[in-house]
């Protein structure tokens, strides 16, 4: 019986940014495989390349060296539109600054990505209701981001990221704008999301959040520091 296809697989990827003062090597020879249902945390000092790696894994950017496969398909061969489609349907993103649209309610923010994916209205309504209940904000559906706390906004952002049933959820410093207690609640929510089958890759400075992951990776100067720590191993 063959092993399940990895959701995303980076093989010796590198990323160089051309800068006026000369090229900056943000990632060097990074190899990483994320299997379905995995929970990975990546930590490291600022500027070590964590976010760059997350953006490559999320098909937001393309590597300048090495190869990247998403569900077995080489990302380099994909056009911009195809990568957009994959991000919309197969990947969820959670940002440090939430990036909820301030003129839309929590409900509309969650529904918008489903609408963009072409989901029928009735299905959208049911899914949005389910997701807002799931993140504990069923009562706040009609509230705009300005009427929500930081933790509530991040929970709406997580609901939005899950809206199109992605196989992979990527989070970039998801507790960076939250206090410890609220960060704990977000950590609990991520645990549930992962337990329900969604693979998670979280970039974080928060040791408590990183500690929840089954696989914890450290990065230094654009490289993954070996060995990875696997919880329970």
């Amino acid at each position, binding site marked *: 019986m063959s092993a399940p296809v990895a959701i995303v697989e980076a093989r010796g990827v590198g990323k160089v940014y051309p800068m006026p003062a000369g090229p900056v090597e943000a990632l060097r020879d990074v190899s990483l495989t994320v299997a379905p249902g995995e929970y990975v945390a990546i930590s490291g000092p600022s500027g070590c390349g964590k976010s760059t790696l997350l*953006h490559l894994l999320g098909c*937001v950017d393309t590597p300048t060296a090495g190869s990247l496969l998403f569900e077995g398909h080489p990302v380099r061969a994909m056009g911009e539109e195809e990568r957009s489609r994959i*991000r919309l349907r197969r990947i969820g993103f959670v*940002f440090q*600054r939430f*990036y909820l649209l301030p003129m839309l309610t929590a409900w509309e923010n969650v529904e918008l990505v489903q609408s963009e994916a072409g989901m029928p209205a009735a299905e959208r309504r049911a899914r949005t209701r389910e997701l807002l209940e799931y993140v504990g904000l069923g009562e706040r559906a009609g509230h705009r981001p300005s009427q929500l706390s930081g933790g509530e906004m991040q929970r709406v952002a997580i609901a939005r*990221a899950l809206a199109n049933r992605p196989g992979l959820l990527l989070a970039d410093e998801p507790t960076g704008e939250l206090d410890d207690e609220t960060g704990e609640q977000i950590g609990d929510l991520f645990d549930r999301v992962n337990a329900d089958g969604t693979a998670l890759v979280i970039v974080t400075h928060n040791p408590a959040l990183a500690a929840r992951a089954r696989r914890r990776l450290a990065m230094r100067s654009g490289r993954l520091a070996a060995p990875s720590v696997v919880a329970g191993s």
Partner: protein
Amino acid sequence: MSPLQFAWRSLSRQPARAVLGLTGVAVVGALLFDMLMLSRGLIVSFRDLLESTGFDVRVTATEALPGMGPSVSEAAATVEALRRLPELAAVVPVRFGVAAVEALGKKTEEVAIIGSETRRRGEWRLVQGADLAEDSGAGRPDMVVNRTFARDQGLGPGSIVRLASTLTPREFRVSGIVEFPFEASGERMAGVTLNGFTRAFPAARRDEADLLLVASPPGMGTETAVSAIRRARPDLHAFSIDEVLERLRQAEFSYFRQVSFVLATIASFFALLLVTTLLTVSVNQRLGEVAALRALGFSRRRITLDLLAESALLVGGGGIVAVPLGLLLAHGLDSILRQMPDLPSRLHFFVFEPRALAIHLAFLVLAALVAAAYPVILAARLPIAATLRKESIS
């Protein structure tokens, strides 16, 4: 959520900015709409005046516009010759003169006098009393006067008008009050028969006409009439209304066309600048959001449609308000411009035409597209990862 709904919500996010944008577009759009009406207003209005006389061809002795050049000599024979042409329905000789008039007991004033036949049609419109009767040669000949002349001199049907400039002053009896299509505001005008004209201006050559007014038969067409006159009398110059207007367009009216073109161009430029600036500022304020939407899988096409819809709402909303605003502004400007001396009081500078509205709407569509171009490029080509990184650092 459709791009239009999304754009509406984006605009309502900053209502003050949206209202300012709409107001700006409405004001600039009103100016543009006015310039479109001005660019052809005089021509359209002048055509209405010319057509209101019921004659579609003007015949003169030279290429000079009617009333501006020498007279047609041997007018009676010329008129008779032209009346025999089957392509013409009516030929009426007209004479122009200016006389000093002294109504009984009143001071001397100038009056423009038009001499025409009693079989005339449309050179004036009777508003009170009776029209001219054929001059029998005995007694006082009839005269019709316009309202200004009647008011200034206290005239009415039955009043006596005494022309003072002739060596032997002649008296006319006012038969009625009329309205001349080309009378200027405040201008005194009077109409008499051709015999009456000769009696008013004894020194004028008898068998002349300053202008021959010609009407083509219904259904035959102006061009046929003009061609027939040119064939029969190549020494004369026949002008259709279109030809008269074309000459005015190239000469007297070109000033207004040029002014309207320059102002319309400036208005267009400011409309584009305004909407482009508003949208660019708006996009720059939400670069992080746009990058996040792109990261979430929103396509470039969707981002482009959202911004185009936002531009369309701003330009479309402002453009719709611009129409009544422009009509109101045009009314005021028209009133001011019509106070210029020696202009026919029925002439308008700003005339509404469906064509002006169609051009205005076409411009709005173009403006919405062009104004959105730069912000669309900015948003659609946004480097997602670099923007998110920058936003996160800032």
